């Protein structure tokens, strides 16, 4: 293609910097949100993986255990009796630094003398002499520790300095005897909050005498014998997992969460695509004459097509690069939100760092460019259709698009029906559930121009009746350029209906959870007992505390819960161990009719009840048996009920304390419910209980717990809210850009209006009325669509993602807000172009074209 030809189009581009900037912004924002979510999510998981890898190092397998930890004699047994090599015993726990910042550090106790082939990630790059001398000192000097060079620097600690940490055992003095250096950024991040010490020191500091947290193992792939030998010697509380499968199960656990987030990212990209489409269409439309002239000069259709696509590619490239940079910045912000949520509901991530891989960047580039090309295909095709001889009048183009709208209407109906059918048949698949929402949204989006035409007719009638021709004009203008306005309205509608849908869903969810939390807090006061369940004294002191509370005046009865993990199906499975009284039994909301003897069976038979998400994920039915690993071999527990629980999406089991104590060691309590006698002053009782407690224990009223629970609920939706507003913001930019383009295209028409005596104020009102009307239509349309989205989210996606059923709570406020959001957004988006147009000198306006 000739340089002149390119220049003829480029010059034009430069003359519309606003449109150019908005198109780039559209691509950039769409790509940024997708990339940011991807980066933040992957980085959270990778941080977790790498952190555990840094701990496990070269290990291939790990023996893990429930909260009780592993008996340290298991290790001796494996090493000495079974003669299994390449084992690393590990004791870990968290300590809080007294100075400065009171940061939580992970304390890792190791055995420095194990095989060199099995080393942790942080040991990479340390010299042999470091290993020999320092590790020997570590072993022989109590409370001696190692820190990474950087951490020591940050804490202003020199070798041989002492520093204080707080643990379950109280304050402890540690002595820094050596620094290890790390050779890459990831290891640096991971080692930032790490204290390495000898296993003896770790047991002493954390009070974990007789226990190990885990045993890391290197097993050669061609050595199934060792694997089997280890399996044989494991007690009921221990589990051998491969490091890979552990990482995999973490990923699996957060899969639903990740998919939902990514769907939100795609929504942003979809709205971003509209922006690109809009701009490119504008650029083509504006150059009808130019393109016509070029065609006259003998420029072929292919050349025109290439020209438009070439421009789009340039925009895509700039937009994508900007988007990636923006996405990285945004990802940093989202990382805290996402890892925070994962921390709250899935597993602990100690230090999440944004990790950018070429793959993810490549994905972003591909997404940005392909989305742009997809969005630019229609206008590029349109450009080739422009005749060389006669430049089509705008209205004729519109006539074409009106015909198109009819065809599209048919397709959109198919999409919507397809979406509903997909939702119905999506089964367990979250992806299909979300796909159905996209189909429905897209279908309604395509239907929007047709519906807009109907709406404009109505508005034209109504306003024309009162306001005459000038009143008819806004609706006319919307209808006249339906190919542009329709898509702007569709984009706005999609964003707003997604917002309405999510609002309704979150509202329903909130209501459901609130009722559940409320119902499941029958006690007056709750004592929560933290602390490491591995420590031997915990059970004893817990029982002591419970006895003391029971003796307090005003206490009628108690209940207790222990939240721990047992091994079911070779997986650590959360279980709540309950000691219930008549009142606390009322705190369960069952998902089905239950027989009168349920509680008797719960207490006295080898039975278990499961939460709704557990039943969903494991396809558990009442009457089925769940086999749990005990030291006496596997034991079958009959599922006798399924109850509502929204505390986690993986679900858990529950059994009576009698049942638990038959097979498993006493780990004390996680919480004690206190039921006061009628007329007791709860505040007083609370302070009396408070006096009995140590720092690891807290007492809270059911009101406080309710509040705290709801706060956690809100916190988990922060990320969803944030992303939703991001896509709404992109939609706003889209509508803004569309309206700018639209008004720019009609400069001349507005000039005529001015020439025949319409004042600039009237013109402003006219334009704002038009955009307001567009917003109103989008808002009105968004109501039913939002409803359908909410419905699919609640009854299909969330139920399948997380196994929760919830009731649909209708909130009219959400609908008003949705309509208002669309209306105000469009109105706001109209203000700037309206003012710009009103200020444009009619003489100049008339000169254009």
């Amino acid at each position, binding site marked *: 293609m000739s340089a002149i030809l390119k220049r003829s189009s480029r010059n034009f581009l430069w003359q519309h910097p606003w449109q150019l900037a908005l198109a780039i912004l559209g691509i950039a924002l769409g790509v940024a949100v997708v990339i940011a979510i991807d980066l933040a999510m992957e980085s959270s998981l990778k941080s977790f993986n790498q952190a555990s890898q840094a701990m496990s190092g070269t290990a291939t397998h790990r023996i893990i255990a429930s909260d009780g930890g592993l008996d340290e004699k298991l290790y001796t047994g494996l090493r000495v009796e079974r003669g299994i090599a390449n084992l690393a015993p590990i004791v870990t726990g968290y300590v809080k630094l007294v100075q400065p910042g009171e940061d939580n550090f992970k304390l890792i106790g190791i055995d420095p003398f194990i095989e060199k082939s099995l080393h942790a990630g942080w040991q990479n790059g340390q010299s042999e002499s470091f290993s020999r001398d320092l590790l020997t000192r570590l072993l022989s000097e109590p409370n001696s520790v190692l820190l990474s060079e950087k951490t020591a620097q940050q804490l202003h600690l020199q070798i041989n300095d002492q520093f204080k940490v707080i643990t379950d055992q109280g304050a402890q003095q540690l002595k820094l005897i050596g620094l290890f250096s790390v050779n890459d950024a990831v290891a640096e991040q991971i080692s930032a909050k790490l204290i390495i010490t000898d296993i003896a020191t770790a047991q002493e500091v954390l009070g974990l005498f007789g226990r190990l947290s885990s045993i890391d193992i290197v097993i050669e792939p061609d050595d199934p014998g060792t694997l089997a030998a280890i399996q044989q010697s494991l007690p009921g509380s221990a589990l051998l997992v491969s490091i890979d499968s552990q990482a995999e199960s973490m990923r699996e656990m957060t899969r639903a969460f990740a998919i939902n987030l990514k769907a939100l990212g795609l929504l942003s990209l979809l709205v971003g695509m509209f922006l690109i489409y809009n701009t490119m269409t504008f650029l083509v439309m504006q150059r009808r004459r130019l393109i016509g002239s070029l065609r006259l000069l003998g420029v072929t259709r292919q050349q025109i097509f290439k020209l438009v696509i070439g421009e789009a590619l340039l925009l895509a490239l700039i937009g994508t690069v900007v988007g990636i940079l923006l996405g990285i910045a945004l990802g940093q912000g989202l990382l805290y939100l996402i890892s925070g949520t994962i921390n709250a509901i899935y597993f602990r991530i100690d230090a999440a760092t944004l990790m950018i891989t070429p793959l993810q960047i490549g994905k972003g580039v591909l997404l940005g460019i392909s989305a742009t090309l997809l969005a630019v295909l229609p206008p590029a095709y349109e450009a080739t259709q422009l005749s060389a001889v006669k430049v089509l*009048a*705008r*209205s*004729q183009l519109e006539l074409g698009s009106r015909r198109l709208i009819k065809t599209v209407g048919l397709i959109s109906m198919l999409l919507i029906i397809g979406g509903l059918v997909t939702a119905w048949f999506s089964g367990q698949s979250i992806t299909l559930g979300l796909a159905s929402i996209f189909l429905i949204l897209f279908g309604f989006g395509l239907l929007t121009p047709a519906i807009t035409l109907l709406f404009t007719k109505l508005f034209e009638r109504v306003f024309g009746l009162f306001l*005459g*021709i*000038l009143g*008819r*004009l806004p609706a*006319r*203008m919307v*209808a*006249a350029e339906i190919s542009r306005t329709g898509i702007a309205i569709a984009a706005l509608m999609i964003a707003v209906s997604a917002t309405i849908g999510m609002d309704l869903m979150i509202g329903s969810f909130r209501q459901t959870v609130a009722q559940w939390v409320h119902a499941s807090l029958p006690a007056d006061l709750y004592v929560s007992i933290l602390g490491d369940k591995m420590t031997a004294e915990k059970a004893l002191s817990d029982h002591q505390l419970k006895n003391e509370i029971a003796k307090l005046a005003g206490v009628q009865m108690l209940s207790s819960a222990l939240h721990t993990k047992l091994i079911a199906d070779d997986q650590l499975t959360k279980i709540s161990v309950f000691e219930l009284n008549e009142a606390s039994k009322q705190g369960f909301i069952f998902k089905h009719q239950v027989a009168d003897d349920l509680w008797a069976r719960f207490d006295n038979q080898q039975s278990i009840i499961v939460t709704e998400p557990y039943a969903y994920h494991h396809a558990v039915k009442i009457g089925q048996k769940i086999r749990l690993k005990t030291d006496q071999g596997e034991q079958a527990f009959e599922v006798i009920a399924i109850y509502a629980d929204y505390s986690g999406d993986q679900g858990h089991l529950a059994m009576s304390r009698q049942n638990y104590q038959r097979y498993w060691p006493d780990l004390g309590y996680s919480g004690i419910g206190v039921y006061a006698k009628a007329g007791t002053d709860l505040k007083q009782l609370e302070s009396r209980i408070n006096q009995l407690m140590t720092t690891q224990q807290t007492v809270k009223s059911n009101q406080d717990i309710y509040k705290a629970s709801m706060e956690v609920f809100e916190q988990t939706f922060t990320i969803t809210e944030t992303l939703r507003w991001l896509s709404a913001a992109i939609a706003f930019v889209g509508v803004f850009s569309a309206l700018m383009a639209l008004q720019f295209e009609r400069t*001349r*028409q507005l000039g*005529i*209006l*001015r*020439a*025949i*005596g*319409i*004042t*600039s*104020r009237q013109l402003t009102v006219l334009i704002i009325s038009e955009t307001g009307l567009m917003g109103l239509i989008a808002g009105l349309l968004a109501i039913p669509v939002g409803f359908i989205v909410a419905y699919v989210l609640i009854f299909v996606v969330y139920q399948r993602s997380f196994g929760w059923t919830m009731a649909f709570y209708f909130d009219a406020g959400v609908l008003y807000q949705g309509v208002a959001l669309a209306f105000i957004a469009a109105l706001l988006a109209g203000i700037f172009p309206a003012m710009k147009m009103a200020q444009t*000198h*009619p*003489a100049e306006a*008339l000169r254009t*074209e």
Partner: protein
Amino acid sequence: MTTDAAISIQKLNKSYQESGQQHAVFNDLQLDVKRGEFIVLLGRSGSGKSTFLNLLSGIDPPDSGKVIINNIDITGLSEHDRTLFRRHHIGFVFQSYNLIPTLTVAENLLLPLELIKRVSRKDHDHVEELLAKLKLSDRLDSYPDRLSGGEQQRVAIARALIHDPDVILADEPTGNLDLDTAEQVLELLDILVRKAGKTMIMATHSQEVIGKADRVLSIHNKTLQLR
């Protein structure tokens, strides 16, 4: 100051800023137009014909000087008042018709009326009447772009006249039309405007009009000269 003239232009100066340079279009331009007079303005493209008409209608304000129409000095008015003045007193006919594409033929005619008053049944009749006169009765509810150029320009003329302005400003009204159609349009303008006793200033480079004009002026040396 009152004069007999429908339009009085006094010491009008107008210049444009272009690439940093002051570019004078008119220097001390003087003109008096009598009521009912038909003035043809000749001149090459770019000589300032359109600018002159824009100055007359108040679309463009002059740098200095006065434009007095119906004893009102529009150069002394604010932009807003100039617009209000325009909607009452000026009718425009453009080279490229410039009908509002989103309004039907009838609505295009009603819009100027609506801008100055409450439109009544009578006005609708008036519109229909006028369109009948222009042989466009069957086009009442058509959108402008369904009409031929000649038809569009006839509607444009009707729009310029519908609200009974004092002055009609026509900017190359036949510029886009073939010879026959141009003839018809000119005929129509002549009849309608003259009959209504309106003052008309028409910028054109079509020689055929000259015969019908009361005065023929041309822009020369940044001022008007009689031909």
